[in-house]
């Protein structure tokens, strides 16, 4: 990697590709030290809250390019994960540009071409990228109209835009493509935009079918796993048997002679094989694994008493709410402890990456959720400047979180560097994904509250114990390959993610109005088990706790759980959301719990600042086995302006199903040394015999209001609504996740 630095920043790649060359070549040329032309932040008055990612890069042509032929390309730094943003972002752009969607092409998450929008996470894509693209499209359209007005010598108000053509009343017209040569679109966005009237929108507020689905249901090339580069070889890694294992001895001679094997890569305890055919690589991987002799060290906590371990871990304490007002005296007091085990992302397709080193630049195709951070990590691992690495997102198998994607990208890059010129395709095996992905952290929460004589909560005390919820790269030490290589790089020290979004304390602050409330975040820096971001981060556990405990308090106050929640809410949108879910479910007319049947309710606003989600559920528990069957779930969701209502429904339905799987079944298992849940028999997830009989999602559309991320809004409420329905059906309150039949006593047990 000693060749001259080649700058693969997006501006240099784009130079010379169309009518906007002029404005690009006039812009200061980018250097390797300043790859993405990020402007001086003090010169950018735009804010993330109002202008989304334009606060990162305010130039309109960083987001939208129109060439002389009139073809339009939209650039987003966010990635398609199966959540449908590649369709929704184009809906937004097409409406504001006044173009049919099929005239638009979308480029996503590529360090060579798109803005650095960090991670595709936290339900931020529509808020950050959707907002930026909408503003850029509206302002670019207005600049083109102004240009047309000058060219046609008519006032702007006399011009109408249709299908990318700007026309006067008498029919004289000029197309966008004809204007780009004389219109400077390399300009910064202005703080205020002229959005199209809601009534003029053709695509937003409507369920446009997703553009990525046809290829996915006909066997088209839709995933990174489907990429085939000319001359590509197949790689497999051999991971140590446990986190701390040290390689004692390894003789690779026999493996190098195996059919199809081209190379065995060994760098410290990083081991890989490269072969001509995929199955040859797998056979060689098995032989390599059998040949490696390891020395292992017990380093994992006692799984039989995990909550005690969590609460006894050294903690940095953060008081995140300390609020005291005059109130009635408390007359009834409740307290409870809730626990969550480590849980796995468990993508159906193990992580995969392609990499090729060519002329000193390593190009990595990856399903990472953050191409820029992943590039920085890989460059750090390879000890080269970031400009010598380009990361391009290609969709992979979904899970919504930080699974093995980044690690696989690092693995592929390290192997590619050992074989310059050769494209390498690496895919993990099932057991590698299960054993090595970073899990959702084990957590413990404790809640105490006091009710006054009228059944109102007057005092609330809440504590959460948790590791960090993001060990994403970051530094190179976040990558397994970097940790395992000879010159190994240690993971960076963990830090709590700051509020208001938070990490372990995400949604730990109650959304309800309590006169007195204390909330403590016990942040646990030691991570004996590898952890990172899983859909919803701490919100899953905190909402499970708060909404379970709200139910217990309602029960103690002898008040209906929905009425009890409404009595403590003052946000009108929260109230609307709760009422809609209750109404559509028929909460007031629901049957009394009997014969193992029960109903539950739960609500949260994700991060207390994104989408609102309320869920009502009816379940049935089989007396002999304790098996829990979801008869129906009814959800209401308010995600602000609903660009694609069916996309939001799909996300919430999926959240309910996925979170039900976490909540009812999932638990990473280990002994004192090794992770032992390494496939779908040792880590069972929901199968069709546990799928709900019916799920209905009602979207509250609020046109003209900001987009609120919905992708993770359902995780927490689902966990709580299940616990609440189980309590209603059985009279037993389960507070330890997962809520398995074995935890039920009496008749409701095997």
């Amino acid at each position, binding site marked *: 990697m000693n060749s001259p630095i080649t700058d693969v920043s997006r501006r240099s790649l784009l130079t010379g590709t169309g009518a906007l060359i002029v404005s690009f070549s006039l812009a200061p040329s980018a250097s390797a030290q300043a790859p993405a032309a990020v402007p001086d932040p003090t010169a950018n008055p735009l804010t993330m809250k109002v202008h989304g990612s334009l606060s990162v890069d305010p130039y309109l042509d960083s987001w939208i390019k129109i060439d002389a032929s009139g073809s339009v390309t939209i650039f987003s730094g966010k990635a398609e994960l199966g959540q449908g943003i590649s369709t929704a972002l184009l809906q937004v752009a097409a409406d504001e540009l006044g173009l049919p969607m099929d005239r638009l092409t979308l480029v996503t998450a590529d360090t060579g071409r798109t803005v650095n929008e960090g991670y595709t996470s936290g339900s931020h894509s529509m808020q950050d990228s959707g907002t930026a693209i909408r503003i850029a499209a509206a302002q670019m359209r207005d600049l083109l109209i102004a240009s047309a007005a000058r060219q046609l010598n008519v006032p702007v108000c006399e011009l109408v835009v249709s299908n990318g053509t700007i026309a006067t009343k008498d029919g004289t017209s000029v197309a966008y493509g004809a204007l780009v040569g004389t219109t400077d679109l390399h300009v910064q966005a202005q703080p205020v935009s002229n959005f199209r009237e809601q009534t003029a929108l053709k695509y937003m507020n409507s369920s446009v079918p997703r553009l990525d*689905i046809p290829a996915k*249901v*006909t*066997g088209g090339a839709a*995933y990174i796993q489907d990429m085939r580069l000319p001359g590509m070889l197949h790689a497999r890694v051999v991971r140590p048997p446990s986190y701390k294992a040290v390689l004692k001895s390894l003789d690779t001679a026999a493996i190098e002679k195996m059919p199809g094997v081209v190379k065995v890569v060994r760098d410290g305890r990083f081991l890989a094989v490269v072969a001509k055919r995929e199955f040859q690589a797998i056979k060689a991987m098995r032989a390599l694994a059998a040949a490696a002799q390891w020395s292992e060290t017990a380093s994992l906590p006692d799984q039989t008493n995990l909550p005690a371990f969590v609460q006894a871990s050294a903690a940095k304490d953060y008081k995140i709410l300390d609020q005291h007002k005059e109130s009635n005296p408390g007359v009834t007091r409740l307290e409870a402890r809730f626990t969550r085990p480590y849980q796995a992302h468990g993508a*159906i397709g193990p992580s995969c990456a392609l990499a090729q080193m060519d002329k000193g630049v390593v190009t990595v195709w990856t399903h990472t959720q953050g191409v820029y951070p992943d590039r920085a990590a890989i460059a750090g691992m390879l000890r080269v400047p970031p400009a010598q690495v380009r990361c391009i997102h290609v969709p*992979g198998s979904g899970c919504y979180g930080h699974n093995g994607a980044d690690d696989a990208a690092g693995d592929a890059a390290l192997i590619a560097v050992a074989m310059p010129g050769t494209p390498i395709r690496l*895919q993990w095996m099932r057991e590698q994904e299960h054993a090595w992905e970073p899990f959702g952290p084990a957590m413990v929460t404790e809640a105490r509250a006091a009710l006054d004589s009228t059944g109102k909560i007057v005092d609330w005390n809440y504590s959460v114990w948790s590791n960090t919820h993001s060990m994403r790269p970051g530094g190179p030490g976040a990558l397994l390959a970097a940790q395992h290589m000879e010159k190994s790089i240690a993971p960076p020290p963990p830090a709590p993610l700051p509020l208001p979004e938070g990490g372990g304390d995400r949604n730990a602050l109650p959304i309800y109005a309590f006169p007195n409330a204390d909330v403590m975040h016990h942040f646990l820096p030691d991570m004996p088990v590898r952890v990172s971001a899983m859909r919803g981060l701490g919100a899953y556990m905190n909402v499970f706790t708060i909404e379970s405990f709200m139910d217990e308090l309602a029960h103690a106050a002898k008040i209906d759980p929905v009425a009890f929640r409404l009595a403590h809410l003052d946000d009108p949108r929260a109230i609307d959301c709760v009422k809609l879910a209750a109404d559509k479910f028929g909460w007031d007319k629901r049957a009394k719990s009997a014969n193992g049947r029960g109903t539950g309710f739960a609500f949260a606003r994700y991060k207390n600042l994104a989408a609102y989600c309320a869920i009502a559920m009816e379940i049935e528990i089989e007396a002999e086995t304790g098996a829990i069957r979801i008869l129906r779930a009814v959800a209401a969701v308010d995600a602000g302006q609903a660009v694609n209502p069916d996309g939001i429904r799909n996300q919430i339905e999926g959240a309910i199903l996925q979170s039900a799987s976490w909540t009812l079944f999932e638990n990473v298992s280990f002994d004192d040394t090794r992770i032992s849940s390494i496939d*779908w*028999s040792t880590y069972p997830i929901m199968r069709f015999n546990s799928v709900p009989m019916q799920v209905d999602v009602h979207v509250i559309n609020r046109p003209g209001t900001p987009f609120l991320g919905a992708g993770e809004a359902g995780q927490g409420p689902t966990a709580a609504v299940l616990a609440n329905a189980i309590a209603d059906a059985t009279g037993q309150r389960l507070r330890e996740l997962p809520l398995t039949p074995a935890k039920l006593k009496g008749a409701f047990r095997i």
Partner: protein
Amino acid sequence: MMKLNVNGADHSIEADPDTPLLYVLRDDLQMNAAKYGCGLGQCGACTVIVDGEAIFSCITPLMLLEGRKVTTLEGLGTIAKPSPIQQAFMEEQAAQCGYCIAGMMMRAQALLDRNPKPTDDDIRQTLQPHLCRCGTHMRILKAVHRAAELMQSAGKAAPKGAI
């Protein structure tokens, strides 16, 4: 050298006889639909149809397939001319990441071929070997019901024997 019939076409395959069908489809024939998920027959992502039966291609070695007919999702239809089940999955928007979907569709197709009017329970039981991580199950069920309807109406429009 082994002969393999996939989607009606004969291919000569040079892979080792113990190579699972999955890798022959993906590497030798450059097909995308069948996916590697677990290599253990636990998740269903690799499912294809062999002589009318849904099988896990990740644990079915090439040597067992001489003279048998393999059908993959590519063999059912195309984006331009989708089969009823492909049409149904598009209509119901029955995917999120979609990695599991090809396998689900093949087992559902095998069910519909032997039972054109399955009950909801039939579909759930049939799809039990399949996992989906995005939680798209409700839409998958709807799409299989919809596929049955589409096949029914296509059958009525063009009765057997008609060309």
